[in-house]
């Protein structure tokens, strides 16, 4: 099915079309909080993008992009033996090069880094966010806590994915905005999600990155179609995966929730009083729980069970 804009999706387009766009004027990817223009001469990137942005429209021109990203093969003699790719943005090279066949992880980390630095009109929590019935379930966490696994699992069970990386809270409107990119899964969580949902649209695995093996789950067509649809704050869940633990859902007191959210936000200090008011507002509006889990199905069942209470609280 073509995208809502009448364009072919990347999944429907031929690899040559994607490759031509990357080598030409660029491929535009609208992730909600930002529109990215991606160009590259790395041959492997087209297929990687096709796999994990498969439901995004194939947009090859636009009058605006927030992020202009170029992934360029390194020149020099080493290109024959160990080719590398560099990330350019606005003429700057903020990172060390990656192996050329790991262009997608470099693009994803680089784009996230740019969003984190530039979207200072939003409070950016390091968080997964999914939505149901207009309300956002926000899952801020430190790396390694099972945030992405839980976010992916919820998205695969029908919750609308807003983001795996950014809880992008708009303080002016009091809503979360999608920052819709592929869900980055690492190491064991890749197999966990494969086992959880054998039909999950996972892209290629990239071993030996600085975070181990990574693979990305493609956002589904519904999430892409609604990439500009916001969600009101519903509840905050602080996930912590703990091997062998029973599922526990523990209420978090507001002052502790405030500290956790303020510490978790990428740009809390940058926003000053606006960030303070935003975190206070979230803490006042949302119930906050800590979720300790090891069994994904059980964790999801607990989340499903608490959601009617979240809806009732919002209605009240």
């Amino acid at each position, binding site marked *: 099915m073509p995208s809502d804009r009448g364009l072919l999706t990347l999944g429907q387009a031929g690899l040559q079309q994607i490759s031509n766009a990357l080598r030409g004027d660029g491929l535009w990817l609208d992730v909600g909080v930002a529109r990215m223009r991606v160009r590259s001469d790395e041959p492997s990137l087209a297929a990687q993008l096709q796999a994990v942005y498969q439901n995004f429209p194939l947009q090859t021109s636009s009058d605006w992009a927030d992020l202009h990203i170029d992934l360029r093969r390194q020149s020099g003699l080493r290109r024959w033996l160990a080719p590398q790719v560099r990330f350019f943005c606005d003429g700057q090279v903020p990172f060390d090069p990656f192996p050329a066949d790991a262009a997608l992880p470099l693009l994803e980390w680089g784009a996230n880094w740019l969003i984190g630095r530039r979207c200072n009109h939003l409070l950016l929590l390091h968080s997964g966010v999914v939505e149901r019935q207009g309300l956002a379930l926000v899952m801020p966490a430190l790396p390694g806590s099972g945030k992405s696994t839980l976010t992916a699992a919820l998205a695969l069970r029908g919750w609308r994915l807003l983001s795996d990386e950014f809880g992008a809270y708009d303080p002016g409107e009091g809503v979360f905005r999608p920052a819709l990119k592929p869900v980055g899964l690492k190491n064991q969580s890749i197999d966990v999600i494969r086992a959880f949902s054998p039909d999950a649209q996972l892209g290629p695995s990239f071993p030996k990155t600085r975070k181990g093996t990574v693979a990305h789950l493609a956002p589904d067509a519904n999430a892409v179609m609604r990439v500009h649809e916001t969600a009101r704050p519903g509840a905050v869940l602080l996930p912590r995966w703990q091997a062998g633990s029973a599922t526990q859902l523990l209420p978090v007191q507001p002052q502790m929730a405030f500290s956790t959210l303020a510490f978790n936000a990428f740009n809390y200090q940058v926003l*000053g009083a606006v960030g303070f*008011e935003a975190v206070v507002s979230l803490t006042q509006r949302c119930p906050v729980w800590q979720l300790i889990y090891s069994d994904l199905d059980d964790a999801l069942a607990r989340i499903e069970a608490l959601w009617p209470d979240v809806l009732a609280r919002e209605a009240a």
Partner: protein
Amino acid sequence: MLFEPLGGGWVAFSSLSGESHLLNAESVAVVETLDLLQPRTAEEVTELLAADSGIPAAELTEKLADAWSMLLQAGLIREQNATACLQI
């Protein structure tokens, strides 16, 4: 300085330092008294709060002891020539 009630306590943001703080009610009372009434000494603060709340001054002195040290440590107030002064 911004204050917001949260749960059983308060959170505060100092635009001077850019830092946020968790405060109890006693600390907020001290800061608000310093801000609004500009007393010159800790004893004056205690007297004003005692008069306002009906709590005996001696009892309040004890209650406020931790608040003073917490506020000084957080940099939300500073001593000036042995008198308290709001740091905003």
